[in-house]
């Protein structure tokens, strides 16, 4: 079905590539702008070389009111395209990514600089006019600068003080006061997306599981849904339950760890210490199911790799209850401690309009009062049958991002309880056939950081012509920068942790 220039398709349903409407560039731009005005979110915007000379842009808009994706494309007839960013800020990073990957210029883009500092995929085409072989030095760029008396610049990273991933942050400050933060990433770039073209190979799923290693289940689920749609297969209901349980265990572990880390960043050590351990209790529940704390080898095309027998299920239930009692006890200390609340409340606030303009997702968006959650808006797998209420708060600050995580911990535990109480009988895996040629599919899975979008195009032989990964962090890094405006620079660790974004998921 086509409407307003788009073909509409449900996430996880493949359509022939030819059904995606080809719009002229002006129409393509207008269709995206009109969609965003109607409240749709740009879930993915990417380029694909259809042939050596032909480059097309694909747009995937998420229409949450109708649980549909709206997809269109446009052929590029030169090495530049007019930037949408001035009218539609949420595409700013997508346009920079397209420019870097395919060597095309986004004319009029206000922040036109590389994202990951790699050579263009199309030799001879470079958005910044660099010669082939000219060294790309990461982090060498024109940083946004504030001029003035006593303005100073603070540079942090790529190697940070803690055991965390690398990235560079550049602050424009006046004393402690932050005017602006620019996050300059790309240090983790491993070629994770580029290596998927031509696949799947025996390595593909392992790359997917490590796109962001703390989101193994989320990304593996998005990938397997795409594969199953392209092959016309379906994973059995028992497997869908286990995937859903694993997805929520992943959320529980990470949300618990984040609440502990937030407590640590305000010097409230009891909760920091307890949550550090309880996070492990949730990871160990995933390991009880599949042997690996991060869920490696659990989600597989056509189902799951491990079953949950009756005694294992009971152990899972018992340990879930014990961990929940502990986390409830540990986290409740946060809300009852005035010293914690004084540091959380009002720090790093993002307003609802800004949040939506930036296209933010996940707990960070829900903390701004935006009701978006792929489990509710675009239900797939077991979430078609079991609803998880959307948890929101309105203040958009560190407190809101912390409190939404606590609300979600409660909902996830309730969901797992419900699922484990009645695991349907049946197989855990079915064989799926070969992927169909010349198809398009996009999937949306609500990972613990927010909506994960995968989009795939198959070629004439049913291999991936293009595989696009959008980690939720890609939408949210600008949110952190905005949250830091007019804050004290000493609040950066707290604000950063309240988002806890992925570096490797962004850098791919």
């Amino acid at each position, binding site marked *: 079905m086509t409407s307003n220039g788009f073909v509409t398709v449900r996430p996880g349903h493949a359509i022939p590539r030819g059904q995606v409407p080809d719009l002229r560039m002006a129409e393509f731009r207008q269709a995206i702008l009109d969609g965003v005005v109607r409240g749709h979110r740009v879930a993915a915007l990417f380029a694909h070389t259809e042939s050596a000379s032909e480059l097309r842009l694909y747009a995937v808009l998420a229409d949450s009111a109708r649980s549909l994706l709206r997809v269109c494309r446009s052929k590029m007839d030169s090495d530049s395209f007019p930037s949408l960013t001035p009218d539609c800020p949420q595409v700013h990073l997508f346009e920079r990514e397209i420019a870097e990957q395919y060597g095309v210029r986004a004319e009029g883009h206000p922040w036109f600089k590389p994202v990951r500092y790699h050579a263009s995929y199309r030799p001879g085409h470079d958005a910044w006019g660099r010669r082939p072989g000219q060294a790309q030095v990461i982090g060498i760029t024109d940083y946004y600068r504030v001029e003035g008396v006593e303005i100073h610049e603070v540079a942090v990273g790529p190697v940070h*003080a803690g*055991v965390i*991933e690398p990235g560079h942050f550049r602050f424009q400050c006046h004393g402690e006061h932050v005017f602006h933060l620019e996050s300059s990433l790309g240090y*983790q770039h491993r070629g994770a997306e580029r290596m998927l073209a031509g696949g799947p190979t025996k390595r593909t799923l392992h790359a997917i599981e490590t796109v962001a290693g703390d989101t193994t289940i989320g990304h593996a689920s998005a990938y397997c849904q795409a594969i199953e749609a392209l092959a016309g297969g379906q994973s059995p209901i028992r497997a869908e339950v286990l995937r859903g349980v694993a997805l929520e265990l992943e959320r529980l572990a990470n949300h618990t760890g984040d609440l502990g880390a937030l407590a640590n960043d305000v010097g409230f050590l009891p909760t920091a210490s307890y949550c550090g351990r309880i996070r492990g209790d949730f990871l160990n529940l995933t390991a009880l199911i599949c042997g690996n*704390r991060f869920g490696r080898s659990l989600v597989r095309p056509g189902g799951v790799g491990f079953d949950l027998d009756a005694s294992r299920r009971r152990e899972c239930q018992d340990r879930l209850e014990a961990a929940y009692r502990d986390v409830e006890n540990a986290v409740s200390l946060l809300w*009852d401690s005035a010293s914690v609340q004084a540091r959380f409340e009002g720090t790093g606030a993002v307003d609802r309009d800004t949040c939506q303009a930036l296209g933010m997702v996940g707990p960070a968006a829900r903390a701004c009062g935006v009701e978006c959650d792929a489990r509710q808006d675009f239900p797939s797998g077991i979430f078609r049958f079991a609803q998880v209420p959307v948890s929101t708060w309105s203040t958009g600050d560190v407190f809101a991002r912390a409190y939404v995580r606590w609300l979600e911990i409660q909902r996830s535990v309730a969901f797992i309880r419900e699922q484990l109480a009645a695991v349907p009988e049946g197989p855990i895996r079915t064989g799926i056939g070969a992927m169909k040629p010349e198809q398009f599919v996009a999937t949306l899975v609500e990972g613990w950081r927010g909506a994960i979008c995968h989009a795939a195009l198959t070629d004439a032989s049913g291999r991936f012509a293009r595989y696009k990964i959008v980690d939720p962090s890609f939408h949210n890094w600008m949110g952190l920068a905005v949250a830091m405006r007019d804050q004290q620079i000493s609040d950066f660790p707290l604000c950063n942790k309240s988002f806890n974004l992925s570096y490797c998921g962004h850098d791919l």
Partner: protein
Amino acid sequence: MLQIGLARLRQGHRTVAFPAEAPVLPDRFRGLPLVDSTKCPDGCQTCAEACPTDAIAVEEGKVRLDLGRCLFCTDCVDVCPADAIRYSQDHRLATRTRDDLILEGQPLQLARALDAKSRRLFGRSLKLRQVSAGGCNACEADLNVLGTVVFDLGRFGIQFVASPRHADGIVVTGAVSENMRSALLETYAAVPPPKLVIAVGACAISGGPYAGNPEVHDGCDSFLPVDLYVPGCPPHPVTILDGLLRLLGRLDE
């Protein structure tokens, strides 16, 4: 305040008994892989063909397994027609050399302790700077866990520190992206000698799932003199702790 005290009582003492007692691991834990080449059907290559990182090679009926490349996934186990390959519960995996990670039927040569002089320096106080150079945040997370009350790394005198200037060595994770190469080398250079290098995870040892990608350097081996290899994807925290304690000569068996 009262509530905080009550919570403290309630949460109790949760530090694991390891290394005094054997670690408690899930029954499906994938530890040291065991291969019985005698079970292999003639000419069978299914495990080698299925292995995502080519960690397995079968030549003349002998299986050669490179733990440095192994992702400890289930792809080989799932396809083996003869149950010749399976995972044991053995969490001990760390070695001192890259060659020790290559198994051709011999028992795994676990990491030997540092020499006496190094042990005098580091044995009771080891400060480490962690550098993620293309890590996926799983190895990083399971290193972080060592600092929690569960493993309480501090009781062994081992600590992660914020500056290479304060460190006795670095712990590298990730396949070493080209974009982190210079930062990794500069961090290493900033550590005062004598210093240690510990490679944690398949990526840091061999590139892991990203081996061969032009954007990465297939681990830190070609840049840095590695003193301890801890395989896994990611290694279990107890595997990392076991390796660290072996290096310091604080484990006997």
